[in-house]
């Protein structure tokens, strides 16, 4: 019955980073720092596959299923 929170915490961190970088992106956009906008957009986009990766890796970890460890 051991639960694994690694995936949940990892995804929450990613969500937090998403929020932070989106805020920065919008601000830098209005400041017309377009290089920074592109950078933040890149980060936000890269975070998505990372989130998927964590999800794939962690979805079967923990819990009390037949294969639960």
């Amino acid at each position, binding site marked *: 019955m051991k639960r694994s929170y690694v995936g949940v915490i990892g995804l929450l961190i990613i969500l937090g980073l998403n929020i932070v970088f989106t805020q920065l992106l*919008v601000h830098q956009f209005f400041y017309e720092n377009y290089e920074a906008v592109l950078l933040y957009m890149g980060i936000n*986009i890269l975070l998505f596959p990372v989130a998927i990766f964590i999800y794939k890796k962690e979805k079967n970890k923990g819990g009390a299923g037949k294969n639960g460890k």
Partner: protein
Amino acid sequence: MTDRNNKIPFDEDNYTHNITKNNERQLDRRGFMKTLAGAAGVFAVASLPWGAIAAKELMGLADKEYPHQKIVDLKDIAVGDSIGFHFPSDHDSAVLVRLTDNKFVAYQNACTHLRCPVYWVKEEETMICPCHHGKFDVNTGAPTAGPPRRPLPEIIIEVHDHAVYAVRVKRYEA
């Protein structure tokens, strides 16, 4: 479809008929993680348009010299007066203020708070946004009061041939 509920147990895992509580926790946790991953996807997609516009600006800005646009003849604007115009496009309203005999300033006058038009108020010697009482310093365009936090974009002005011309829009210094 009411008799559907009478067929117990359902084949698949579910919450309402999961009497033996198989996989219950795992389902919760997994569903939550799925939502989080989906949220990351939404953020990724949502930042695309900003980046696209930024990339467009970056490519276009190097040679972004608008044709000089005549705003007003010198004799038609008295010291302390202001006049509205549009620059660089017809949709970018702007305001020109004559501060002294030969000192002019011009700003795009969409308030940097929520884009209401900002006016020059001669009596108070400041630029005022009527919507939420934002104020801007007329010399620099910097916000001095109210909700706005960013300066108004300044328009570079040239005076020649007895008239005032708008040359280009100055970029912010962040």
